[in-house]
């Protein structure tokens, strides 16, 4: 099983290089078949790894450089259950995206496939790596590929989104690298577990606190957490749908995963006595994302951009799960990430199908255009319902775990998460109602900017192969069904418990120490989680119907604060960088105040 670990990165990279070297001479279905087969094989490998890692981590040292006397000489992949699942998510979504793009693009060069495969390798590598600098390398690799894919537009619009993406993620990565430099200076280590051991012995000083702030903020930029999220929605609006599906389904989730991993392996020992302060900051950021993302999603008319804000909101929920600093909540966060990622990717591919058939990806202009695509409409609606956490589907189990991890004083948390999920799902349901059923008004000033390029372009109806819907349906079923399989929840919480027990984890990685098969029974969903799930679902449907009934969102009471909120998302890269610096300064200052 061990020798399979490097293959999840090596296989897609090799296939990508072969495609570039020879793909020019291979006729059309060739590159598609190679790319899809590679991605599917990687998915199988990742699932196998997750299965193998259900009781203990698989630790793989590249080049055979095992640590000597607790000093890591090389780079390791630390495959725990959660990381392997996230890697599996990445490869499944990438496979679906490749299948989708086979029929989506009329003309696609071999370079597109090669880039998606490199993207896949970067994501699996980023999910599994146990080395700080190696995380940085994969972070940069993800950004470079993603920017290139964003710019590969079928959209004629300006490449502003790709540019904001590159600049913001670039700066985020420099924050991470500065943090890594600080950590290396203090500990002389790049391996996360070794860092954790070295930092544990001393009270955290300015160096440790700031290094942690910089690294976390850098990863949260990738995750699109408020106020680091500005680039995300612009990038989604520009990138082609199959690429967007990868962004929405996995890429952001990976940033979150890395933040959790760096905390528990690297900093948990040093910051243990300041848990309360840290929890307050992280949960606050998570809630801000959940609410702002929800509100912004509700105010969008561009469907891809709407899903971008759904992502922001959902990742806020994920960050709350991590930020509660409890094993149960961490496991819940993983589950939210997994099922939510599958559902968002499914919704995005369905939207991509609508764009592909009608040429319109806009809720108002596309009103009623989806009438001939009932199945696609059902996919979007079910994904939206799944995202509310209606028991027992979709994100329900994950959210229930997150909520059950809330310590005293956080009793208000379910309310916030419920409001956020009502807003996001109502937005999706409203859009589905308008596009697929033709309900509601055909104009609303509050939704998106007045000016949309190519407004008067004649809408087209192109017949499309029904195969295009298959990947979306598969992702939808996986996303909805994940919670129904009860042992998955047990597994994620058990895996989280092993991560939280960071000393034993470090011993396991660095010394091949005794493998502790912690078992946590996650079957503790209280009545609150049932209530909040049902309230979210009912509330989302009701709000969607209400807004369609009102005919205009702008008739809703209490929307006065909307314009300044929308004005913040100005599309200007300089503004976004200023907000990024503001966010880092804010988080850093709060940490300085609370964690010393």
């Amino acid at each position: 099983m061990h020798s399979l670990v490097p293959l999840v990165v090596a296989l897609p990279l090799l296939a990508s290089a072969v495609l570039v070297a020879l793909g020019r001479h291979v006729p059309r279905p060739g590159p598609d078949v190679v790319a899809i087969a590679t991605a599917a094989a990687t998915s199988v490998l990742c699932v196998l790894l997750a299965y193998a890692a259900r009781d203990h981590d698989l630790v793989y040292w590249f080049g055979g450089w095992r640590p000597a006397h607790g000093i890591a000489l090389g780079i390791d992949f630390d495959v725990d259950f959660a990381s392997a699942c996230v890697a599996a998510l990445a490869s499944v979504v990438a496979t679906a995206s490749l299948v989708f793009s086979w029929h989506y693009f009329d003309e696609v060069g071999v370079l597109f496939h090669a880039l998606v495969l490199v993207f896949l390798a970067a994501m699996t590598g980023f999910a599994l790596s146990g080395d700080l600098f190696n995380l940085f390398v994969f972070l940069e690799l993800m950004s470079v590929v993603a920017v290139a894919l964003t710019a590969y537009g079928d959209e004629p619009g300006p490449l502003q989104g790709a540019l904001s993406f590159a600049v913001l993620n670039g700066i985020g990565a420099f924050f991470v690298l500065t943090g890594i430099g600080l950590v290396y200076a203090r500990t002389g280590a790049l391996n996360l577990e070794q860092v954790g051991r070295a930092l544990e012995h001393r009270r955290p000083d300015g160096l440790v606190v700031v290094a942690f702030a910089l690294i976390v903020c850098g990863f949260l930029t990738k995750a699109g957490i408020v106020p680091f999220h500005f680039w995300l929605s612009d990038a989604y609006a520009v990138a082609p749908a199959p690429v967007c599906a990868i962004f929405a389904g996995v890429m952001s989730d990976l940033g979150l995963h890395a933040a959790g991993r760096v905390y528990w392996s690297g900093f948990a020992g040093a910051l243990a006595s300041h848990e309360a302060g840290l929890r307050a900051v992280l949960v606050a950021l998570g809630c801000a994302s959940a609410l702002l993302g929800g509100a912004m999603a509700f105010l969008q008319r561009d469907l891809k951009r709407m899903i971008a804000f759904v992502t922001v909101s959902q990742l806020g929920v994920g960050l709350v799960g991590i930020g509660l600093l409890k094993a149960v909540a961490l496991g819940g966060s993983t589950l939210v990430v997994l099922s939510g990622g599958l559902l968002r990717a499914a919704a995005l591919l369905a939207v991509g199908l609508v764009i592909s058939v009608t040429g319109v990806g806009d809720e108002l202009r596309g009103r009623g255009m989806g009438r001939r695509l009932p199945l696609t409409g059902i996919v979007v609606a079910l994904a939206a319902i799944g995202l509310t956490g209606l028991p027992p589907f979709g994100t329900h189990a994950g959210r229930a775990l997150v909520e059950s991890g809330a310590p005293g004083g956080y009793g208000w948390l379910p309310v916030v998460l419920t409001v956020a999920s009502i807003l996001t799902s109502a937005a999706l349901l409203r859009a589905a109602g308008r596009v697929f059923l033709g309900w509601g008004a055909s104009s609303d000033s509050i939704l998106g900017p007045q000016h949309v390029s190519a407004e008067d372009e004649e809408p087209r109806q192109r017949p499309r192969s029904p195969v295009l819907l298959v990947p979306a349906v598969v992702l939808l079923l996986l996303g909805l069904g994940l919670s129904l399989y009860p042992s998955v929840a047990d597994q994620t919480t058990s895996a989280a418990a092993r991560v939280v027990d960071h000393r034993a984890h470090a011993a396991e990685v660095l010394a091949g120490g005794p493998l502790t098969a912690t078992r946590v029974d996650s079957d503790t969903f209280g009545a609150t989680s049932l209530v909040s799930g049902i309230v979210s679902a009912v509330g989302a449907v009701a709000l969607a119907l209400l807004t369609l009934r009102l005919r205009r969102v702008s008739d809703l009471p209490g929307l006065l604060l909307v314009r300044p909120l929308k004005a913040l998302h100005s599309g200007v890269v300089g503004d976004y960088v200023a907000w990024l610096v503001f966010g880092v300064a804010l988080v850093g200052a709060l940490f300085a105040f609370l964690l010393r």
Partner: protein
Amino acid sequence: MSLRTRTGLFLASGSVLAGLLGWAFAGLPAFGHYHGVYGRALDRVSLGQTHAMSTIASVTFDYRGFDTLGEEFILFASVLGVSLLLREMRERDVDAKRLTERFEPIRATGRIGVPVLFLLGLFVIAHGYLSPGGGFQGGVVVAAAIVLLAIAVDYRAYSGLAPKSAADLVEGVGAGGYVAIGLGGLVAGATFLESFVSRGTIGELASSGTIALLSWSAGIEVAGATVVLASEFFEELLARRR
């Protein structure tokens, strides 16, 4: 935001950030007094374990060779991205003569420079584990020689020597070669990127195991990538006016 508000927001949060950085940097060891365990350990064991004279080379292509794999693909992917972007939209026809006219002053020196640079690049790649240098630096120098050929001699000679499909092939072979060498370790029953050839005698050109192979594949990839990159940008410039 107006430029003014934006600058204001930045200056306010930037000064907080400056304070934070100052606070963090105060905890660093004084300049010149670093004693990290990782570097010390490698200094002690690297020569004996890898037979590479340069610890940098053994870190780059052996202990942390996996980082370098990622780095190589960063280059690979960004070149693919540039190709995708610029090839897509280009006004096709390329006016080859204009480039040579544009860079007239450097033609004379260029003619001598091409072979010298080319050999220098190969030398730098080959000796990376004995002295400063290696695949990445040498690869750029080799590519510079090829690009100089375009500028100084003739763009047509250049595009004949380095047509896109050939450059793509070279790039793919370099990047794929790195992965393949890594997989060689697996096939030989060891781990990914583990050295599976003899380490040889310290100081000789044929020493240090897979470090030499990996350095060469990096050199090939970098040279290929840089040439593709340069060609794409050149053609952007040379595209005939419409």
